[in-house]
């Protein structure tokens, strides 16, 4: 089946999901997180997976979108869509500055520089006044063209739209000159240059596309939560989570990042809320008063990051090409 048809079918199914889960805001919240991480990781994948340029600082572009949107709305009360466009511009400026300097170098310099840039952005935002500093920015009621933006539904569909657009762009790129060039750069930069590929131009192009999409997701997230601070939208943890999602799903594949998000986000959520431990105790499989029961009930919830980390390490050890890498065509 054609990939574009698969995207449409999956998007249609995803669009109907909120109707089935009904009024449960918790489930809807988790699904929004899944869509957002799928889209973030897919956007990262254009640069990291196809062009082979690993960015460890995508939080900078996410934060650029989130902060631009929040500052413009809270200070100047601009239209949310306009604020999103402004966020894209800011993110692209940061991307261009980083890319035009660092993409001249080969090797791991871009990865290192991306961390540095993200930290510079984070610390700057933390230390200036108009960004709210450590207090962050809080937004009260929000609406757009009579649409109530205080509910979760608009953001579910917003995230879904951005995900579909990101997958569509990935699919288009993959079949175009740019996509082939990005893959050539990933495979061998010398060979690519000798075949007429302007390395820094195409790397910058991939970075700009990736940064712009990431910024839109940052704006959406900010409008959805209506509160941001640097630890929520500019943290290194976020950058790492984006990469892990892509790696575990399958780097450089169309569906890898989506699969990664569908598996990892609910897993993290289950560990955090300790669903597994409580279910085991509730159904009497593990006695509440036994040592294991006490551990599950009291400690596991606090150790969710540890468990998440162990699962991640196991995935990388045994599935180095990601889950989709298992099913890769081999000829």
């Amino acid at each position, binding site marked *: 089946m054609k990939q574009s048809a698969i995207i449409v079918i999956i998007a249609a199914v995803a669009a109907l999901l909120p109707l089935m889960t009904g009024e449960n805001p918790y489930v809807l919240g988790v699904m929004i997180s899944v869509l957002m991480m799928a889209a973030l990781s897919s956007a990262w994948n254009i640069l990291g997976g196809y062009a082979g340029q690993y960015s460890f600082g995508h939080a900078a572009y996410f934060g650029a979108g989130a902060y631009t949107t929040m500052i413009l709305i809270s200070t100047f009360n601009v239209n949310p869509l306009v604020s999103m466009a402004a966020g894209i511009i800011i993110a692209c400026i940061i991307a261009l500055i980083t890319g035009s300097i660092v993409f001249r170098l080969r090797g791991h310099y871009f990865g290192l520089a991306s961390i540095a840039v993200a930290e510079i952005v984070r610390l700057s935002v933390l230390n200036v006044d108009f960004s709210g500093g450590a207090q962050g920015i809080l937004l009260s009621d929000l609406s757009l063209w009579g649409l109530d933006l205080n509910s979760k539904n608009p953001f579910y569909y917003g995230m879904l739209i951005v995900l579909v657009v990101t997958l569509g762009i990935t699919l288009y790129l993959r*079949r*175009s*000159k740019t996509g*082939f*060039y990005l*893959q*050539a750069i990933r*495979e*061998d930069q*010398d*060979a*690519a*240059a*000798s*075949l*007429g*590929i*302007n*390395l820094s131009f195409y790397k910058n192009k991939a970075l700009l596309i990736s940064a712009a999409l990431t910024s839109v997701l940052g704006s959406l997230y900010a409008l959805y939560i209506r509160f941001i601070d640097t630890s929520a939208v500019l943290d290194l943890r976020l950058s790492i989570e984006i990469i892990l999602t892509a790696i575990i799903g399958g780097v450089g594949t169309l569906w890898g990042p989506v699969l990664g998000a569908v598996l990892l986000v609910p897993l993290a959520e289950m560990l955090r809320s300790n669903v597994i431990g409580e279910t085991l105790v509730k159904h009497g499989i593990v006695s509440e008063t036994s040592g294991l029961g006490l551990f599950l009930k009291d400690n596991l919830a606090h150790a969710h990051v540890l468990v998440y980390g162990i699962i991640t390490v196991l995935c990388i050890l045994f599935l180095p090409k990601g889950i989709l890498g298992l099913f890769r065509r*081999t*000829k």
Partner: protein
Amino acid sequence: MIGHILHINHVCKNFGGNVAVSDISFSVDEKQIFGLIGPNGAGKTTLFNCITGFYPVTSGTIIFDNKKINNLRPDQVCHLGMARTWQRVKPLGSLTVLENVMIGAFSVTNVTREAEEIAIEQLASVGLSDYAAKFAGSLPIGLKKKLELARVLATRPKMLLLDEICGGLNHTETDGILTIIREVRNKGATIVFIEHDMKAVTSICDSIVVLNSGEKLAEGRPEEITKNPEVIAAYLGGGQNAND
């Protein structure tokens, strides 16, 4: 000047204090098959890297098709019509053979379908059609060399720089490559050819430059070169200097 497509004028290349290429000058005529030979470490590949924009030259000028190309990037040199292959082949391993050649073809078209057509045609011309859907990384060395050739030919070069394209190949494979090179020349391209295999060089080249320790040792027609005592001493295996 007329008829010359490439001029190398007093080109030097130093790496720190090491002189890799020292004051080399020669010209290549259009539609020639031009051989660049010399023992290991003579500076052949360094010179190639200078010509194709991978290394900046320390001094001297390189003129291709009446344009000075010293300070151009490799991709700009490619777009002027000069393409190269690599001594150690550089297949784009996780792409298919067809996709590898399409990457080359994209330098003359922006349309995927056209790139694919050019690539299919080019694969047929080097006899790789059966392998189009294989991953480039999975090919044996002989076919990887052919793939390198198909890939640069897809950029439609005026001039082709081949760095030991026959290295590591058996006689049948070498003959196959030489046949393709002659065909390419007959269609109007100029070829500069680094090679160790003297038989291949003398059988195919119109003109040869011999490098030794970064300097030009001799220049001339194949039959002159093979009789030149200095060349024999340095390269063809005579006496103490045969360090190859």
